[in-house]
Structures are given as structure tokens and as C-alpha cells.
């Protein structure tokens, strides 16, 4: 099989190398014609923050000069830092399997990452625009998208929170039914706190309040996130009307004591209060978790959620392997079917089957002395019909199959509904 994969990812190269080899969409568009010049019949370049992979089908004449990895490195002007040792390459079924693994999410840095499938679709779209895809990579990428979809619908590989902010937002939905009727207060302006607020907003949070020691920063956050700024000094009184509190400030001591939270709970008629403490050192006295209807989660607790989600996702990997093997098998069968001789043979068999069936239906209308002639006649018609396509197909084979012949075979198989013979 003439499919190859050349790549660099989080397992083979550190971040400094990966970022040098990251290709923007425009860079991919720019390198595509160069790859064609390099005698690649088909090529798709997938580039994300954790991987850059080139899937390709080489032409008949491989240029012996500069190798593909050198070309990619030179394009990025990274000759001094990026060496051959960071690259891996796969060929034939291993290259196909690699594409399927990537699409399924099990090859991602965070197992089950949902972004990768979209990134592969975008890369494939650019390659199609640049007219760099053909029958092999079209089929390969559609198989990969199918695997990605199956992985997400048939397994739980993408389930559970794998970031602090997402875990916090998910926990909120396990306490409250409808976030649109809830108010959250973000204290501090840390990145994780902001992301948590964003996740809550994306889940239809009713009201967002923002407090910061510096009022100006709170006002700036309002511009970024929406919501309303409140005075830092008033957070205790505000908490009486807030359902979710996110605290992410740098403070040497607790900004809320157990006694204060007890007072707050009285003031709020003991309605549930979810507090996310992502400050290090912690902002809220951890003993507050023992108060009725107070759910206090610190950074360790949220990391624990992430660990559990990742463990659950990893437990799904065997199911993904099964899906990959099934789809790899289908791909290989399709690939094997793209051969001239078996296609001609199957086509002949199909036509012969039609001929004999139809002949059997009507042969009794003819006198017995004409039956042999009828047999000959129908055979001749079938042979004549098949002659031209067979000659055309055979002419395409000069040792190895070129792309045009593969396209013809694929078209014939689909037009005449020739099924793929299953491997035992």
C-alpha cells in the first residue's frame, strides 16, 4: 500500500521543537504546491499544537535529493533546532492506523481530546482546496472521520472534565438544575478563574458578578466577560445572594473564615452554596466544607475530578482499538479491491450471472434447436460490452497502479455495485 505518514508529536519532541514545526493554515496552503513539486501524488498536512503530521501518497519517481522532513524543516526555517530524530514515519497499514488513532482521540496528549477531529477536517479541507487529495487520502480521511464519530458516539472517550475550569463548571451543574436562574461571583482575575466563569456563562449562567482588590481590574473583566463589578469589600454581603463563588486571589490568609461562611449561610436561608477555591495558597478555610449545603472544592479536588475523568477515558481505549481494527479492516478490503484482475473477474461473473438468469427465464419460448445459438449470441453480446472497459483497465497496469487506474477501478466497482470480498 502506497500511503505514508511522516510526523512529529508530543511523544517524540518537546514543546520547543513542536512549536517550531507548527504550521498555520496559510503556511499549509503555501507548502502544498511545493509538496506536489516533490512528486507527491496526494498530501494532507495536519498541524496542531501537539502534532504536525504529513499523510501522503508518493509518485512513481521519488526525488532522491532533499527528504520530506528536511523540506518541512527548511520551510519553517528551523534547520538549526529540529533534527531527524524527532520525526517518526509509518507506511502502509501502519500509516492508516495512525490516522485512525489520531482521529479517535487516543493519540492526543489529553486522551479523548475533541478538538483533533475538527483540526483534521480543516487540514483535509485545505488539501482539497489545493487539489492535493486523491482517491487514497479521500478514503483514508473519510474513514478517519468515521472512526472519530464512532469513538464519540459508541464510547465515553470524550466524557468527563479534563480541565480545572471545565471540572468546576460541570460540578456546578451537578448541584444546580438551571444555571440561568443562578448568580456566580468571581473574586480575582486569574486565568483559571476567568475560564471557569466563561464555562459557566456558556452554560447559560444567569448573572456574573466580578470583584477584585483593584476596582479597575474588575471593570476590565466586565468588558472581557460581561456581568457586573462589585466592591471587593462587599463580597461577604454579596455572598448571601450568590449561588456559585469562584475565588482565585493571591492572599497570605483565608479571605473567608468558617464563621463568616456560617453567617452567610444563615443570611441565605441555608440555600446551597458552591465555592470553587482555585487560589494557592487557599483562599477559603477548608473546614467550611463541613457546613450543611456548602460545597467547597479546592484545586486538589478539581484535579481529582480530572484524574478520574482521564482514568475513565483510558479505560475506554480498548473499545476504541476494536473500532479502529474494524475500520482498518474495511479500509484494507477496499484497498485490496482496487486491483485490476479481481475487478475484471468480478465484473465478468456479475455479467455472466445476469446473462444466465435472463436466459433461463426466456429460453423455453425458443425451439430446442435454437437454444445453442441463443447461448452463443448472448455470450457474444456480454463479451462485446465488457471488451472496451477491460482493455482500458488492463492498459493502466504497468507493474504498479497509477492514480487514474485506481480511480477507474473504484468508479467501476461503485457503478456496478461490486462488493468487496471479506477476508477470513
Amino acid at each position, binding site marked *: 500500500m502506497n500511503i505514508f505518514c511522516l510526523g512529529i508529536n508530543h511523544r517524540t519532541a518537546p514543546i520547543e521543537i513542536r512549536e517550531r514545526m507548527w504550521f498555520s493554515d496559510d503556511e499549509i496552503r503555501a507548502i502544498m504546491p511545493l509538496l506536489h513539486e516533490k512528486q507527491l501524488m496526494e498530501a494532507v498536512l495536519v498541524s496542531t499544537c501537539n502534532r504536525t503530521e504529513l499523510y501522503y501518497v508518493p509518485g512513481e519517481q521519488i526525488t532522491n535529493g532533499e527528504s520530506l522532513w528536511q523540506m518541512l524543516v527548511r520551510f519553517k526555517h528551523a534547520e538549526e533546532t529540529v533534527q531527524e530524530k524527532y520525526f517518526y514515519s509509518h507506511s502502509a497499514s501502519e500509516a492508516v492506523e495512525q490516522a485512525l488513532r489520531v482521529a479517535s482521540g487516543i493519540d492526543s496528549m489529553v486522551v479523548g481530546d475533541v478538538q483533533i477531529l475538527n483540526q483534521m477536517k480543516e487540514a483535509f479541507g485545505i488539501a482539497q482546496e489545493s487539489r492535493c487529495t486523491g482517491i487514497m487520502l479521500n478514503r483514508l480521511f473519510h474513514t478517519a472521520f468515521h472512526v472519530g464519530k464512532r469513538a464519540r458516539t459508541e464510547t*465515553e472517550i470524550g466524557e468527563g472534565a479534563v480541565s480545572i475550569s471545565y471540572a468546576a463548571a460541570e*460540578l456546578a*451543574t*451537578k*448541584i*444546580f*438544575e*438551571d444555571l440561568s436562574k443562578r448568580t456566580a461571583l468571581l473574586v480575582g482575575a486569574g486565568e483559571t478563574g476567568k475560564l471557569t466563569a466563561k464555562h459557566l456563562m456558556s452554560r447559560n449562567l444567569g448573572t456574573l458578578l466580578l470583584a477584585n482588590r483593584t476596582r479597575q481590574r474588575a471593570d476590565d473583566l466586565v468588558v472581557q466577560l460581561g456581568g457586573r463589578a462589585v466592591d471587593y469589600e462587599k463580597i461577604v454581603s454579596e455572598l448571601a445572594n450568590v449561588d456559585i463563588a469562584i475565588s482565585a486571589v493571591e492572599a497570605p490568609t483565608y479571605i473567608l473564615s468558617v464563621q463568616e461562611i456560617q453567617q452567610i449561610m444563615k443570611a441565605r*436561608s*441555608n*440555600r*446551597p452554596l458552591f465555592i470553587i477555591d482555585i487560589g494557592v495558597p487557599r483562599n477559603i478555610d477548608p473546614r467550611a*466544607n463541613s457546613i*450543611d*449545603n456548602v*460545597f467547597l*472544592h479546592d484545586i486538589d*479536588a478539581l484535579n*481529582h*475530578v480530572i484524574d*478520574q475523568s482521564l482514568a475513565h477515558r483510558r479505560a475506554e481505549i480498548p473499545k476504541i482499538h476494536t473500532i479502529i481494527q474494524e475500520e482498518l479492516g474495511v479500509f484494507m478490503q477496499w484497498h485490496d479491491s482496487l486491483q485490476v484482475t479481481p475487478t475484471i473477474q468480478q465484473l465478468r461473473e456479475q455479467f455472466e450471472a445476469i446473462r444466465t438468469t435472463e436466459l433461463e427465464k426466456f429460453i423455453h419460448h425458443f425451439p430446442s434447436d435454437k437454444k445453442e445459438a441463443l447461448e452463443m449470441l448472448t455470450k457474444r453480446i456480454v463479451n462485446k460490452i465488457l471488451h472496451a472497459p477491460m482493455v482500458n483497465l488492463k492498459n493502466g497496469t504497468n507493474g504498479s497502479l497509477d492514480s487514474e487506474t485506481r480511480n477507474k477501478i473504484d468508479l467501476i466497482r461503485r457503478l456496478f455495485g461490486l462488493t468487496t470480498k471479506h477476508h477470513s
Partner: protein
Amino acid sequence: MAPAIVIIDMRFLVNLLEILLPFFYFCTIWAYAKAFFSNLKVAERWSGRFLLSTLLVHTMYIVLRSVEFQHPPITSIFEILSLIAFTVLVVYTYIELRTKNLSTGYFILMLPFFFQLVSSLFIKEVPEIPPMLRSNLLGFHVLSALLGYGALTISAVYGFLYMMLYHDIKSKEFSVIYKRLPNLEVLERMSFTATVFGFVLLTIAIVVGTIWLPRVLDTRSFADPKLLGTFIIWLIYAGGLVGKKLAGLHGRRMVVLSMFGFALAMFSLTIVNMFFSGFHKFY
């Protein structure tokens, strides 16, 4: 030739359904357990089918038994247990059809399964039935009380599920309970709705019991242990409902109160009935 007429002996049918019912409940619970723990879509489809089949079979059993023995199934503790199982099943089916949420079925249906199992194992024909147990008024009183207790049972199970999820979130142990159950607020609402439902029915049962029944019962006494027990339960639930409205009882406290009320109700239904004497003791 005359067509063969197959006559099914009614008593045989009642006995057969009596044996089959626990199996139906078991299959239903099994399907719900599979759907909950393994998240199998097939099990989700089958759980609904089993639920409706069990409801159908149990309805047939209650009707046929009432017709065959010519009295409502309230003459022994084991008939009552089967009736409680039935009422829990009816209320749960209603809740599931309304909320389209299957995740609590496994936990709720454990109770009717257990009740029906005990009933099927020990039920026997009562040789002499006191005439008043054939009274329709008593039937209405008992049915409203049992439907009320059925709803309170469901409320308590939702309360129990609330406590499990509450504990999971508080202790940062995110088990399958955390993943599959609806959120705390929904569980609290389900528990509260069932409580209100049960409280109203219990009120009706008490009103019927205290106003009309003394007219037909000479041995009545307002100091009867079960009557007192039921009244105390009623007071606790009334206090809880008023407390929620006035004192803002929320979350865990409300749920704990509901479970406490249920424990007392069970005590009143079983222990008091077995060990204390009074006019309310018929068997």
C-alpha cells in the same frame, strides 16, 4: 364437533401471577441496573418495556385477586404489601413518564420488588374475613393511605439518592452515582413533589378514617397506637412543609426530615401493627 373450550381456573391464574410477579420485578430492576451502571442503550429500551409489563401483570393480579376472593386486597399484611408495591410502581411509572428520566428507576423499584417478593412468599388465604374489611369506605381509606405511603416511599428513596450524591460531591468521590444521577436540585424537587403528593393523600386517609369510619366501628379509640403514629407522621410532614415555606428548609435538612418521616411511617405500618393492640389491628 363442538369447539374445545379452554377454561382457565381463576384461582390457578391468581397463584400463577403471584409467582410470576417477583420475576417481572426482578427483570425490570435488572434492566434498570444495566442501564444505570453500564450505560447500555439496549437496557434503556428494555427497562421501559419491562416496567410497563410489570405494571400490567400487577394490575391483572390485583383485579383478579379482588374478584376471586370477593374483597379488596387489604385483609392481610401480605396483601397490603403487594398493594404498597403496586402503588409505588404506579407513582414511579407516572414520574418516569413525566420526567423521561430513567436513572432513578433501579433504586425506586428495589422497594416494590422486595415488598412483592415477601408478599408472594408468605401470602395465604385468610379463612375468615371480618365483614368491615369488605367495606368500600374502608377500601377508599386504605387505598388513599397506601397511595400516600407509596408517594412518601418514593420521596424517601429520592431523599436517599440525594444523600448519596450530596456525599459524593462533598467528599469529592465521584462514583457512578455522580455520573448518572440527575443533579441535587432535581432530586430535591422530585423528593419534595412526592412528599406533597403523599401528604395530601395521607390527609385524605386520616380525614376519612377519623370522621366516617367511627360511624361503622364500635371499638374505635383515638388512643389507638397506629392512629397516633400516623397522626405524628402527618404532623412531622406538615411541620416540614411549613418549615420549608417559612424557615427556608433547603437541601440536606429537608431531605433528612423526609427520610425521618418515612422511617416513622414504616415503623407505624409494621412494628406498631405487629406488637401493639388496638382497634386498628385487623389481622
